[in-house]
């Protein structure tokens, strides 16, 4: 397909300057010189518009979040408070961390369906080991390592045997969930003093507001991912693979290693999310986090990341989680609406953002 080559090259050019708007314009100007030297000014203006367009879905998510927050404040008394906002973070720490890992995978054009099961598996391992009297820090280390190795294994199968990520991570979903049942069919309560203290800890903020330690960890993950994606060679390779794997390989980038690493990152994030979820629920349960992979994917998509890869921002994924969270807050504030409306609204939002991306990107074409 001749159309895909300039696409990939274009993305790669934008990627090298790590998403800064100016170089995108330079790339556009260069292209306009090559294609039609007669009207470079117009072309430049168009390409500048397109350069902004790639921020549009993420910007729309952030705008949507603020609009929903404002609407909630107008409709419901008590909605407009810093603590309601902070509660969104507190209640969704695990989803934020999951979405961070998923962003890496989706940016390369892959998908990780196993994250929900790995969260449950991490919780089960943590709960079982704590019950056996292990040191909590050793437990956390083991869980994080397990998650990373699980992701690494899936990445290796995907890369070495060239099997589609979809099917490999689907097998991962079954395997991790099945292993949960092998550990225990019943819920295991966590009574470890460190875990309970983490569950109850409140970090005070001005104006009587507070956050949980999990929020700090989740935000550190967002910051870390932002640094990795925009300021390291690894991050640029991630974007380049999403823009066009063949082009990335031809550019001499470490494509195989990076592809394996994104699944390792996702596995590590899932395990961390599992630990955060244990802090939150103080138990391990085989059925926990069922369908959470869908929430994570939805958050990433609503956050403006293109599912074909190459475009998107981890900050958008954070905003995506907050939007999904505020939908839930709305429904609980409304009182008369039942919980299933959450799923319907999330589905509708997903559709809305997919259509929005469709408008802003000329990348995915069919027939």
């Amino acid at each position, binding site marked *: 397909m001749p159309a895909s080559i300039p696409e990939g090259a274009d993305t790669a050019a934008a990627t090298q300057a790590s998403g800064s708007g100016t170089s995108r314009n330079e790339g556009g100007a260069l292209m306009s010189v090559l294609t039609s030297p007669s009207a470079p000014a117009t072309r430049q203006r168009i390409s500048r518009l397109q350069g902004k367009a790639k921020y549009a879905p993420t910007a729309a998510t952030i705008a949507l979040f603020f609009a929903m927050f404002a609407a909630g404040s107008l409709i419901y008394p008590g909605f407009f408070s810093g603590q309601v906002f902070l509660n969104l973070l507190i209640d969704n720490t695990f989803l934020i961390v999951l979405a961070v890992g998923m962003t890496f995978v989706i940016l390369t054009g892959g998908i990780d369906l196993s994250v929900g099961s790995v969260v449950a598996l991490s919780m089960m391992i943590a709960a079982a080991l704590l019950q056996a009297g292990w040191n909590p820090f050793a437990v956390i280390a083991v869980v994080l390592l397990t998650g990373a190795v699980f992701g690494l294994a899936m990445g290796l199968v995907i890369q070495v045997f*060239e099997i589609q990520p979809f099917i490999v991570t689907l*097998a991962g979903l*079954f395997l991790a969930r099945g292993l949960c*049942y092998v550990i225990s069919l019943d819920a295991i309560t966590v009574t470890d003093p460190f875990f309970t203290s983490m569950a109850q800890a409140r970090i005070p903020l001005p104006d009587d507001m507070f956050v949980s330690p999990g929020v700090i960890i989740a935000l550190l993950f967002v910051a870390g991912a932002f640094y990795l994606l925009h300021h390291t060679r690894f991050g640029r390779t991630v974007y380049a693979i999403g823009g066009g*794997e063949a082009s990335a390989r031809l550019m001499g980038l470490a494509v195989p290693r990076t592809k394996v690493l994104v699944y390792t990152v996702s596995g590590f994030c899932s395990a961390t999310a599992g630990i955060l979820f244990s802090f939150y629920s103080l138990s391990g349960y085989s059925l926990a986090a069922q369908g959470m992979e869908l929430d994570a994917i939805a958050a990433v998509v609503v956050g403006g990341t293109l599912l074909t890869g190459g475009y998107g921002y981890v900050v958008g994924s954070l905003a995506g989680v907050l939007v999904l969270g505020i939908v839930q807050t709305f429904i609980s504030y409304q009182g008369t609406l039942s919980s299933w409306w959450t799923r319907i609204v*999330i589905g*509708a939002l997903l559709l809305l953002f997919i259509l929005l991306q469709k408008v802003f990107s000329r990348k995915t*074409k069919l*027939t």
Partner: protein
Amino acid sequence: MTGVLRHRLLWPVLALVLLLLLNQGFRSDFLLVRVQDGHLYGSLIDILRNGAPTLLIALGMTLVIASRGIDLSVGAVAAIAGAVSCTYIYNSDNPGSFSTAATAVAIAVAAGVALGAWNGLLVSIIGIQPIIATLVLMTAGRGLAQLVTDGQIISVSNESFHAIGAGFFLTLPISILIAALAFAGAALLTRRTALGTQIESVGINPLASRLAGLSARRILWIVYIFSGFCAAVAGLMISSNVTAADANNAGLFIEMDAILAVVIGGTSLAGGRYSLVGTLIGALIIQTLTTTVYTLGIPPEVTLVFKALVVILVCLLQSPKARTLLRQRRRPAPALPATKAAL
């Protein structure tokens, strides 16, 4: 030609036979089918009957995957079909009559077709990637089903409705007959007409198919509508078997089972080539695997681990890399990477 076909289905068939023999080893009456009260009874019949919903959904999934798509929404569609049919029967004036059951079935099937058409619209007209387009309905669908049932588990008592999942006709369970009918219909339609080739052609390259004069869009609509139809019928079977609609759990993970059945049956997720017989064998393997776990006395929840191991094994065996490693003389298919890049 027959050599290739045998090669493709050799491993799945072998796996199925091995599983059945394993069961026979543990329970000597496993392969025995006997007649009782004029019906056929036995573990083999049970495998067929319990596997019927998965097989139905896998049939639809096979054609969708052949068009290089995927339908994640089938479980949700099955739940919606169960929800609308049971709610209709529950609220009707004459909940026990045949006509009520028939109307309920018609409504459920219409809902399935409509939802399939919705997926088809997103994929073919708007041009969204299939996995994402159907993810929307997968996310929202169970919510919609709960909306219909108002979050309750709706129990109904209607003998005609109950017969779909649990009744017998000509000594055979009706669900097996429905699945067999759907299988024969799909096989005839796609292998005796040009439709199958057209689906494969769209799966290989939609643009080239259109340039060759095919309406790629219409074909995509057809496969998604067929998938929605199959999912609705499977949903009817599931809810009829337990005479209740459970919006939360009906058809949970069935999309995964269906995809596994298709993959085990040798259909590549890259599209462009499919085998309905392979899907049939794949669905039987999955159901037999579940039965085996029961036979061996392993907690049924552990089935997932076995399923995962089987999928990984089958995928590894089918991957071109592993094949070239295993058999040096077999050359890797050169067309595959090119078509992937074209997407």
